[in-house]
């Protein structure tokens, strides 16, 4: 399941909806990314996250399929927000559903690696009196 949306989300509800489909899931590994109050030693007020939506969907689908070939994955959830996000807001959730821990864990990390490197999102970070486009360091 891939969602690219402006709105906030409840991770528990989103994960439950998928978990309820599979009684053979024993392991869910999740990563949640948040807007921090500082970055590169500068105080951050908010970010504006731009997305190339058509491409993001296409790339997320591709990476989920790749993960499914590498690991015994039952299902996978990616939610990525865009638009104006204040500090403490969720940016992204990746959850990988598997029978066993190792598969869920490694695939979740793999997807996050890809996402940081290739997902077509751009962060414009807003400070007290200025703003700046970021490139991902990690």
């Amino acid at each position, binding site marked *: 399941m891939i969602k690219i949306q402006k709105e906030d989300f409840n991770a528990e509800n989103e994960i439950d909806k998928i978990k309820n489909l599979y009684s053979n899931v024993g392991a869910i590994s999740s990563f949640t*990314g948040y807007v921090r109050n500082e970055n590169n030693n500068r105080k951050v007020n908010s970010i504006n*996250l*731009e*997305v*190339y939506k*058509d*491409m993001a969907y*296409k*790339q997320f689908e591709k990476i989920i399929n790749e993960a499914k070939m590498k690991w015994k994955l039952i299902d996978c959830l990616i939610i*990525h927000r865009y638009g104006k996000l204040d500090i403490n807001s969720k*940016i*992204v959730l990746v959850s990988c559903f598997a029978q066993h821990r190792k598969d869920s864990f490694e695939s979740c990390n793999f997807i*996050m690696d890809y*996402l*940081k*490197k*290739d*997902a*077509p*999102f*751009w*962060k*414009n970070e807003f400070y007290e009196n200025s703003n700046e*486009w*970021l*490139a*991902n360091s990690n």
Partner: protein
Amino acid sequence: MKIKYFAWIKDITNNDEEEINSEEINNLDDLKTFMKKKYPDLKKYLDKEILRFAVNQEYIINNINLDINDEIAIFPPVSGG
């Protein structure tokens, strides 16, 4: 062909999307040459090869032929997640 711009590229093109059709443009390298002329401020970034290109929502690194129906995106390194 439809050209899309993201992040600070838009500040140079003053546009997030435009239709460009020219007989000069047969492949991606032609498009880059065309863009350098149309947007002189883009030249240094294109020359330094820090920008990324997607054709029909797929990353393209090598030169490929372009079709009039293609959607080409030009953008800086990503920063999602």
